[in-house]
């Protein structure tokens, strides 16, 4: 009985307990699990292979690796994941890149100090493709060369402030506890090995099918459109730009100034030219080319030339090239001044015609065009290099915003975003390109004070919209300009060239999901602007049109496209030797 009385006493005491307790409670096992794990969304640095070996980052083995998280500056005496600000990343890799205790790195997206430049590329990007001997010229003074290094640990880029805040909090908790358990641990699943061992170069891994080749689709459009069955042959003026960028982190490659500003200027120029009447009567034909894969070994331009030589474009009346105008980085020109770069070996008369056309256009658009400094060894890194290699006398120039070295501090960098370009520069560049192309196409038969010339107006709101579509996040590629022509697969455009997984013999026009959003937009845009004027009874379509002269333009998820007469093609890959396809 006494025992029972004591038990009742205990019971009364216990009744008080719930009110004394505090703290958050877990309501279910899934909630428990969500408190144990947090996922840090980040962008990886991935493993690349080239002819000679490996670049980039990956887990050292075939399994996930994990280590407690610390901040850069904390003592590194045991395996750890290090949280590094972007500004200090290069320094960190130089000092600790070989340290066995570095299991993985998280890079914080920092607020860059003004004047600070961080380019991941080399000081002479892709110097090995230069058609001249001086390969130590510094085109890219801000280049760290980081993207060409091989690291033996995973690196991820944290861009959102919440993730950075979380990572910092976990790291400081670890430091407070010292080495006592439990520690906050980061696990990396960046297992990027070729699927078979012993294939560390492109040749071996492609042979063994244990890796994927880089590649994509470039877009070619003739203006005005060609009758494919019997094309007339006219001298061809190529206007070209490139669309892909590459940084240390594969998926963060906005490439706003370099190279997308060139594409935007070119597309705006095409839009302006589409209102010029009687282009058919001009003596030369314009061909617009937007390459991809240029940042990774000039894949697009080299493939183009290879196919050109094989006669793949004879159907479009394209068998040789008369003149080339390449639009390079034109997004941040100072005081509307652009520089014309040419190779000393270029054919004098034809090249001078291009330069004169540019001078004339500049005088009519309130801008300045200057010839690049004579001390330059030659043309800057550009697709034109491929053409010069093929034929040193080719009459080609590159328009750039810089003279002797890049003014773009963020060439091939995660920070080359919309704040790195400005509208006035783009609009003036587009004007220059449009007017120069008209002069060239008319073979100087058009006087610069002719009403046609004066009427070429670049649509400023189009340029602004393109900047928002290509580099913005909302609406990004869901903007009305893009939506009117196609439905994008992703909300945000990324300008990494991508891996080529389709069967090269399949026509890309029949598989729109295979082509990346930006290229598909360029294709639709060029097809729309270069097509013969709309008539009322155009056939509706989803992918292909019966008439070989026609292509299906503007098919989206919510509307059918129209079959328009246009010679715009995404040129497909025929079988070419493997080492040319991948970097």
């Amino acid at each position: 009985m006494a025992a029972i009385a004591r038990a009742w006493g205990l019971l009364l005491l216990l009744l008080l307990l719930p009110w004394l307790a505090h703290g958050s409670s877990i309501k279910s096992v899934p909630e428990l699990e969500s408190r144990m794990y947090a996922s840090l969304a980040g962008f990886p640095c991935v493993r690349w292979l080239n002819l000679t070996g490996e670049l980039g980052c990956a887990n050292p083995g075939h399994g996930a690796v994990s280590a407690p998280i610390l901040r850069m500056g904390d003592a590194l005496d045991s395996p750890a994941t290090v949280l590094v600000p972007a500004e200090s990343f290069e320094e960190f890799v130089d000092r600790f890149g070989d340290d066995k205790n570095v299991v993985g790195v998280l890079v914080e997206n920092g607020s860059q100090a003004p004047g600070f430049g961080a380019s991941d590329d080399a000081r002479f990007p892709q110097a090995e493709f230069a058609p001249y001997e001086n390969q130590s010229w510094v085109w890219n003074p801000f280049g760290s060369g980081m993207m060409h290094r091989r690291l033996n640990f995973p690196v991820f880029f944290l861009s959102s402030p919440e993730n950075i805040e979380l990572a910092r909090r976990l790291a400081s908790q670890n430091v407070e506890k010292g080495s006592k358990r439990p520690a906050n641990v980061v696990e990396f699943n960046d297992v990027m090995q070729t699927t078979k061992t012993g294939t560390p170069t492109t040749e071996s891994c492609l042979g063994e099918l244990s890796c994927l080749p880089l590649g994509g689709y470039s877009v070619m459009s003739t203006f005005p459109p060609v009758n494919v069955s019997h094309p007339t042959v006219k001298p061809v003026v190529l206007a070209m730009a490139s669309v892909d960028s590459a940084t240390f982190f594969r998926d963060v490659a906005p490439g706003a100034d370099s190279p997308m500003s060139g594409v935007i200027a070119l597309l705006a120029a095409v839009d302006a030219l589409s209102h010029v009447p009687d282009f058919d009567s001009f003596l030369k034909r314009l061909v617009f080319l937007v390459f991809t894969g240029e940042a990774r070994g000039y894949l697009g331009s080299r493939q183009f030339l290879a196919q050109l030589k094989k006669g793949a474009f004879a159907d479009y009346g394209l068998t040789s090239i008369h003149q080339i105008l390449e639009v390079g980085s034109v997004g941040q020109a100072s005081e509307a001044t652009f520089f014309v770069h040419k190779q000393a070996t270029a054919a004098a008369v034809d090249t001078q015609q291009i330069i004169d056309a540019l001078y004339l256009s500049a005088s009519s658009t309130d801008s300045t065009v200057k010839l690049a400094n004579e001390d330059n060894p030659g043309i800057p890194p550009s697709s034109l290099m491929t053409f010069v290699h093929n034929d040193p006398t080719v009459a080609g120039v590159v328009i750039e915003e810089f003279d002797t070295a890049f003014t773009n501090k963020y060439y091939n960098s995660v920070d080359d975003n919309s704040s790195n370009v400005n509208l006035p520069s783009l609009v003036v560049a587009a004007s220059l390109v449009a007017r120069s192309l008209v002069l060239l196409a008319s073979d100087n038969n058009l006087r610069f004070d002719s009403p046609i010339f004066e009427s070429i107006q670049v649509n400023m709101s189009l340029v602004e919209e393109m900047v928002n579509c290509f580099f913005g996040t909302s609406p990004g590629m869901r903007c009305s300009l893009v939506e009117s022509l196609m439905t994008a697969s992703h909300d945000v455009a990324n300008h990494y060239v991508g891996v080529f997984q389709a069967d090269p013999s399949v026509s890309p026009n029949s598989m729109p999901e295979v082509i990346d959003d930006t290229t598909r937009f360029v294709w639709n845009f060029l097809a729309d602007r270069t097509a013969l004027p709309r008539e009322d009874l155009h056939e509706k379509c989803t992918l292909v049109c019966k008439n070989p002269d026609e292509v299906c333009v503007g098919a989206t998820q919510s509307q059918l496209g129209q079959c328009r007469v246009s010679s715009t093609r995404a040129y497909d890959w025929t079988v070419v030797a493997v080492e040319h396809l991948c970097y």
Partner: protein
Amino acid sequence: MGLVAGFGYFLIALGPALTIFGSSVAPKPFLILTVLASALVWLASLNIAAIVWRAFLPGPSWVFLLILTTSVALQEAFRLLYWHLYLKIEKYLNVLATKLSKPQCNYLDRLEIALASGVGHGLAHAVFFGLSIIAPAFGPATYYTSSCKQMPLFLVSALSSLAFFLLHTFSMVIAFNAYTYDNISQKLFVPIMHLGAALLTLVNLLPNGCTAGVPLVFLCTALTMAYGGKIVWHNLVPVLNTPC
């Protein structure tokens, strides 16, 4: 820690269960059936309590008191039911034994069935309360609650399951003995110990409470085991082989 940790916690919770099962229950097939039947009955009781209380959760913290008290009361009612069910079965078993010219069941058999029933009850508790919480422990991470920095949540859960398993196992032995000999203090001992242990788990809610809560529940278990042992020792020697 992964698999090692997960299995470790599992064995902490149910290691003795496996031992008891292997040594005392497994050799007799009827006892295995008893374990299963008992486990199902007790799982049903827990489910009924859970279904009713799910409607009132999440709620204020004093709800815990109500939940615990009513659930323990429900379980003790089930225990009485179980006892009456057992009497019926024993009658049928004796009829069967007579037909087959086998001896009738005696006090020792009753105790063994009691032990097996208790094992079933304990297993039901461990599975219901312990195993789902221990499941995430098989992954690479662990978890410490803010009120218990000394032990991972999984260890507290595993130890708690162990304590309650042993408590229930031996409670059933005491209960069967209590109903057999109509002993009031023994009859009251089991519900009070059960309620006491259940309420003592609330101590874990206090900051650093797990350092006291877990040992206190084990104290209840130890008392139950000691009491049960004493009863069995006291009763078994003189009444061995006496018919029930």
